[in-house]
Each structure stands twice: as structure tokens, then as C-alpha cells.
């Protein structure tokens, strides 16, 4: 049995009387795409925030490659190897695509004040190969604001790649993409899992069932089922949750 890369154990988080996550545990194994699905308000965003370090859970731990991340902030977790993409693109819009990628290639080492960063061959190599990987090699000099929505999503993935992460944490990478964009992103993620496993939060069920090795279903802050796509498809609890019959006994 292989050791999981990312281990989330017993994460709970309440906001006042509202319980967003209750005793959530999940694993991300080497080479897999593990999808996290659930209806709106199920607590997916809270869980992502707790894993990435954006908020502190009331209880629970997060381990990445055996290292305890609990108590570290977002920047430290990124340096520890958590490559993240956002639901709404977070990019430096006035900069070139290559500059955005170079930012990731810095690996968190930003306190160098004299050497021209864009002339650093090592950084350029990392940035350009990440851009090539997502198919943006022709756009290195383009201003990021001039990219299409789909290209921005690809750039997000490229920046995450420059970190050479141990695990990816992707929050709805398909959001707002058309058919073609979704197909391209699906192909990209499919190939990416061999580099580092992906914890994927996604609303596009077609993509989820095509890509995921395992799926966890979050409902009312709890994971009600984890399993292969086939198992999840047949799980009566999941069907009930998605058909909106939770209220009935």
C-alpha cells in the first residue's frame, strides 16, 4: 500500500452555529486524481481553504508527503509543495504571461533585489517549459489581461507547475470554459496526474467522471461516500443527496 501524498484528517470548521466541515478525512494517493464533489453549500470551499491554509480549522490536521502542514500559512504550504489554482483566476493581469510563470519559478525566494529576474536563464527555463506544457508557449510575451478566459485557466495551471508541487489543489479549473476548453483542460489534467496527484473540486460531472480515479462526496459538511466513479454512481446516499431528497427519512 502506497503512502498517501496528501492526508487530511478530522477537519472540522464551524462558523457560529453553521457547521461547514465536520470531521472530514481524505487521502490523495500518488498518481491519482481525487475529485471532491457536492451540492452548493456543502463545504467544499471551506475544505479547500482549510487545506490550503487560507483559514484555520477548529480541529484536524493536514499532512503533505509526511510533513505536518497544520499551523502553516498559505505561503508556507505553497513552498512545502501545494500547487494551487483558483476558481476565479488570480493572475497579475498587467504582466506578461512569462512574467506570471516566472513568479512561480522563484519558488518563494523573492528577496533578491539586484539581479534582473527576466534574464535569469534557469528561471526562464522553468517558466517556459511550464508554459509549453499547458500549450501557452506561443503567448509568453502576451499581456495576461489580453488572454482569453480559457488561456488564463491554463496559465494558472502552468504557474502551479512551476512550483514543481507534490500535490495539486484545483478549485473548479473548468469553470466558465466552453466545450473545447473543457476538453483541452481535461486532457491536460489527465496527463498531469503522473507529475503530482490532483485534488480536484469540480462542478462539471462529465469531466469528473472521466478524469477521477476516486471521488469523495461532501454533503452538509460531511463526506458521505468515497470510491471509484462506478461505486459513486451507484451509491444510494449520493443519488439521494443529488436528487435533493435529503429531508426525507
Amino acid at each position, binding site marked *: 500500500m502506497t503512502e498517501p501524498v496528501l492526508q487530511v484528517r478530522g477537519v472540522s470548521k464551524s462558523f457560529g452555529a453553521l457547521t461547514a466541515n465536520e470531521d472530514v478525512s481524505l487521502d490523495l494517493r500518488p498518481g491519482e486524481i481525487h475529485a471532491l464533489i457536492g451540492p452548493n453549500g456543502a463545504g467544499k470551499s471551506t475544505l479547500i481553504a482549510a487545506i*490550503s491554509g487560507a483559514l484555520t480549522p477548529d480541529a484536524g490536521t493536514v499532512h503533505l508527503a509526511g510533513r505536518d502542514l497544520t499551523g502553516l*500559512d*498559505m*505561503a*508556507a504550504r*505553497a*513552498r512545502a509543495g501545494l500547487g*494551487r489554482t*483558483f476558481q476565479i483566476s*488570480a*493572475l*497579475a*493581469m*498587467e*504582466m*506578461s504571461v*512569462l*512574467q*506570471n510563470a*516566472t*513568479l*512561480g519559478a*522563484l*519558488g*518563494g*525566494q*523573492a*528577496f*533578491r*533585489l*539586484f*539581479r*534582473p*529576474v*527576466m534574464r*535569469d536563464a534557469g528561471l526562464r527555463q522553468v517558466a517556459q517549459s511550464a508554459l509549453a506544457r499547458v500549450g501557452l508557449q506561443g503567448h*509568453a*510575451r502576451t*499581456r495576461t489581461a489580453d488572454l482569453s478566459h480559457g488561456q488564463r485557466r491554463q496559465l494558472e495551471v502552468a*504557474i*502551479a507547475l*512551476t*512550483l514543481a508541487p507534490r500535490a495539486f489543489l484545483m478549485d473548479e479549473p473548468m469553470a466558465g470554459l466552453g466545450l473545447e476548453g473543457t476538453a483541452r483542460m481535461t486532457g491536460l489534467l489527465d496527463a498531469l496526474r503522473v507529475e503530482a496527484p490532483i485534488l480536484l473540486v469540480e462542478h462539471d460531472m462529465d469531466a469528473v467522471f472521466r478524469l477521477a480515479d476516486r471521488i469523495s462526496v461532501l454533503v452538509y459538511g460531511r463526506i458521505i461516500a468515497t470510491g471509484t466513479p462506478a461505486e459513486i454512481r451507484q451509491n444510494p446516499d449520493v443519488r439521494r443527496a443529488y436528487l435533493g431528497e435529503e429531508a426525507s427519512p
Partner: protein
Amino acid sequence: MRRETLLNAAILAGFLALPLWAWMADEPFIITLTTRAAILALAGVGLNLALGLGGLVSLGHAAFFGIGGYAMGVLAFHAQTYTPLTEAPFLIEGTKSMPVIWLVALITSALAALVIGALSLRTSGVYFIMITLAFGQMFYFFMISWPAYGGEDGMSIYLRNGFPGLNTLDPIQFYALCFVLLAGALWLVSRIQHSAFGLALAAARQSPMRVTSVGIRPRSLHLLAFTLSGAITGLAGALFADLNRFVSPTMFSWQTSGEIMVFVILGGVGRLLGPVLGAAIFIAMEHWLDGVSDYWHIYLGAILLGMVLFARGGLIGLIAGREVAHD
């Protein structure tokens, strides 16, 4: 990019040619005026590092300008009265040496910026503006109520401080010093702008989340930028005091902070030579329009309004176009 480089060269050439002409035509007043512009430009270059690159709208940079000024004032005051600053735990004497004064001005204003930054950067947006303003005002009222160094009346320093090998009382020689420091600061800021730090700082302005998610803490970037920014403005304060041979709490006033910000906005926020052009135009207007009307600020206000509404890149942006992303 090309056009901005040309424009930058033209601005610097102007800063060399005008005083040179004035020197040959024996117009010392013009030299003094240009010196004033160069020193205020240096203060603006400092602010531009925080405001332009970092996006930190500080309305408290007068604090650093004033600290630099008083670093000069206090050291020179003790030197001219032959009294030591302190005798315990060890003797510290005043000095009339510019390099020492500059060093003290740089260090004290950097330390002040570090402390003020560490406290202020916990906030952002309008709260950051207000808290930096509050710190500036604290220094202002503190200086007013400190009688040892002149209180409200300030202090006169009878002789300009010395620089080894130069006669600083000769306007053109003092100007040369100021210009070299301005050029040095511009070179430094340009290096920073193109460094890894500059890249991360600019990215943090545009998307803090992006920077965090690649493992860099925006607040550390901001604190360093703010500290360097305060140090440069502090150096300008020391020069300004030396130019006037006078320091007073006015240097700490919020109007001073506002004026420094006007240079930056007028010339172009985040553009390397923006504050230099802004300060030059401000000083030119102050000189010529003051003769036309006592209320010349109304013209400045109108120009500033037009600038903010129609030319977000300031004068540099107007002439050289939008900033181009460096490949």
C-alpha cells in the same frame, strides 16, 4: 518602452542642462530652484517605490522626510553649538559632514519606516492611508512640542554642511551632489523594479492571492518596499534641510506628504521618472504661477484633476503611452 526611455533621457538631460546653463549665465537662483526640484524628486522617487510599485498609498511620507531633515538639523545644531548629543552611555557629538548626516538620515528613516510599516501594513486600503497619515501627524505634533530643537519655530543651521573635496556653499556644487544622489536612487529603483523582488512586488499589487499561492508573503514584500521607500525619502529630507539651512515641523506636515504624492501622480504613478517630471513641473508652476496669482494652487488642482481623470499614467503615460510589460 522605447519612447519612455527617450523621454527619461530627455528629462535627465534637462536636469543637467538647465543648471549648467544657469551656472554659465550666472543665475544662481535658477540653480537653487533646480536643486529644490531634484531634492523633491528624490523624495518622490522614494514614495514611488511604495506607491507605484507596491500600491501602498502612504499619506505619511512626510514623517520620513522630516526625520531626514531633523537628522541633519540635530547633528548640525550640536556641531555648531559645540554640545554633544549625549554623553552617556557613550559620547555622541554633532557633525557637519554630509556623508555622515546622510547615513544617519537613511538609517533613522528606514527604522521609522520599518516600525510604521509593520504596524500600518496590518491594514489596507483607506485604513492604510489614514494610519500612515496619523503617524505623520504624530511626528508633526511631537516636533512642535519639543523645545530642545526649536519647537514650532524650527532650527536654523548657519553654514551648509560640508562634503569632502567640495565647496557645498557654491550652488552648482551642491546641485551636483543632489543630482548624483537622485541618479543613484533612480538606478537603484530601476534595478529593484527588474529584480525578483520587483516582480513579486508588482504582482502582489495586482493580485495578492497569486503571490501567496506561489509561496511569497505579500506583507513581507510590502514591508521591505515601505522601508526602502522611507529611507530614500528620508535622504531627500536631509538634503532639503541642507538646501534651506533650516528645519521646522512643517517638513512633517500632511501637506508635505500630499505634495510628494502630487509629484508622483502628476508625473506618473509607478513610472521610473514620474516623480522627477512631476517635481520639476510642480516647482516650475510654483515659481511662475506664483507671480501670476497667489492662488496658483487652483491651476495645479485643475491640472491634477485632469491628470487623474484622463491620464492615469500621469504625464509620462500621456507622452510615452501605457506601460509595456517587460518580456
